[in-house]
């Protein structure tokens, strides 16, 4: 089958972001989505540390230590962007003003529960950042992740075994194998990669899938 690599997953997510959307891309894998937004469209990237209208990384040598993203990497500001403080920034997130956020995940459940901040491992030092605020606040939460762990276990599960980030918050899941919507009817498979049958996808997935009415191979 034609498994998507990380950049291909990011490009697939980017296709679902309409012009004019206010979007937060979580740290790690989701940051890649920014590289695949069509350059002609005006999409507003929000960074939790107080930036709206965030632009791409600066040219080497033009980094500004006061202009970084949530992952603490140097970024730029688009013309028309602006700065604000943390409470205002999280008001945007928690008040339902962001259209879309894209998050990585350890696990997503059949009902859209998200686990992405802690493996719950004994002795691990927990860190949560803004993930729970995004999960609770964005109008649509998209998850972007590998379908399987390195050990080959499904990250889509009937019920999360890792500590939760949010309950019933995930709207759509993008993996290297498929695009899956979390709906009231269940996990609807919107797309499968070329050469992957529904049955094979189901076999690799730890929760019951259903074909979406409009489902088709990508």
């Amino acid at each position: 089958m034609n498994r998507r690599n990380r950049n291909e997953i990011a490009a697939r997510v980017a296709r679902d972001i309409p012009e004019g959307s206010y979007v937060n891309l979580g740290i790690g894998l989701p940051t890649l989505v920014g590289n695949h937004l069509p350059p002609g469209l005006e999409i507003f990237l929000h960074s939790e540390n107080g930036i709206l209208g965030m632009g791409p990384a600066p040219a080497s040598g033009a980094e500004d230590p006061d202009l970084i993203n949530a992952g603490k990497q140097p970024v730029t500001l688009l013309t028309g962007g602006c700065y604000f403080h943390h409470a205002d920034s999280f008001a945007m997130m928690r008040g339902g003003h962001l259209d879309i956020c894209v998050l990585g995940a350890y696990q997503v459940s059949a009902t859209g529960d998200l686990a992405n901040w802690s493996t719950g491992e004994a002795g691990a030092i927990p860190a949560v950042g803004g993930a729970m605020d995004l999960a609770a606040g964005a109008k649509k939460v998209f998850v972007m992740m590998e379908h399987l762990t390195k050990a080959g276990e499904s990250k889509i599960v009937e019920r999360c075994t890792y500590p939760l980030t949010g309950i019933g918050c995930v709207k759509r899941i993008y993996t290297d194998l498929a695009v899956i919507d979390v709906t009231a009817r269940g996990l609807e498979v919107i797309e499968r990669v070329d050469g992957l049958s529904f049955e094979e996808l189901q076999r690799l997935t730890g929760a019951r899938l259903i074909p979406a009415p409009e489902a088709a191979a990508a």
Partner: protein
Amino acid sequence: MIDKTVAGIEEAVAGIHDGATVLMGGFGGAGQPAELIEGLIAQGAKNLTIVNNNAGNGDVGLAALLKARRVRKVICSFPRQADSYVFDALYRAGEVELELVPQGNLAERIRAAGAGIGAFFTPTAYGTPLAEGKETREIDGRHYVLEYPIRADFALIKAFRGDRWGNLVFRKAARNFGPVMAMAARCTIAQVDEIVPLGALDPEIVVTPGIFVHRVVRVASTRAADVAA
């Protein structure tokens, strides 16, 4: 290209539906979106709930909207004024409902709606008639009253300058309720003295980021020549 500017007042107030809750900026005349309110009167929506610091003055603006019998309920902190006779008469006749809210609770409840807060404990009004029937709690030796967000369908506000992304700056004390109201409505409509090109507003001084603003309409200022000061 995203362009939130609209050509005129009529377009700006389009879609405000009967029964809508509408936040209205301004403290006295400062920051009052007078032309948007006139537009709302012409547009015809009725059975409105209006949230404003006051309840109208003289025969213009909110008073005219009240006079036209479009308002079911007013949520405000200070209805009674020397020239609030339109509201006064309707209220005495039982034709408009009043929810009186201390001014700080008003601002904070509007902000809470914008910030996703479900409810908050406020020290204001504890032990007074305005807290009657409300949940109270003692926290760390102080008494508080539980207050809920004021969410709205529309906000009509007045700013000084705006751009096509909806970024706004205000002028002096005309800022007042504008920034918090912009956060709390599903559709925020701003009248501005001037529409400036994208990038003309320094990113450090934008008061209301465009994410909170949905329509921007230019209204020639009726202020004196000092407007650009």
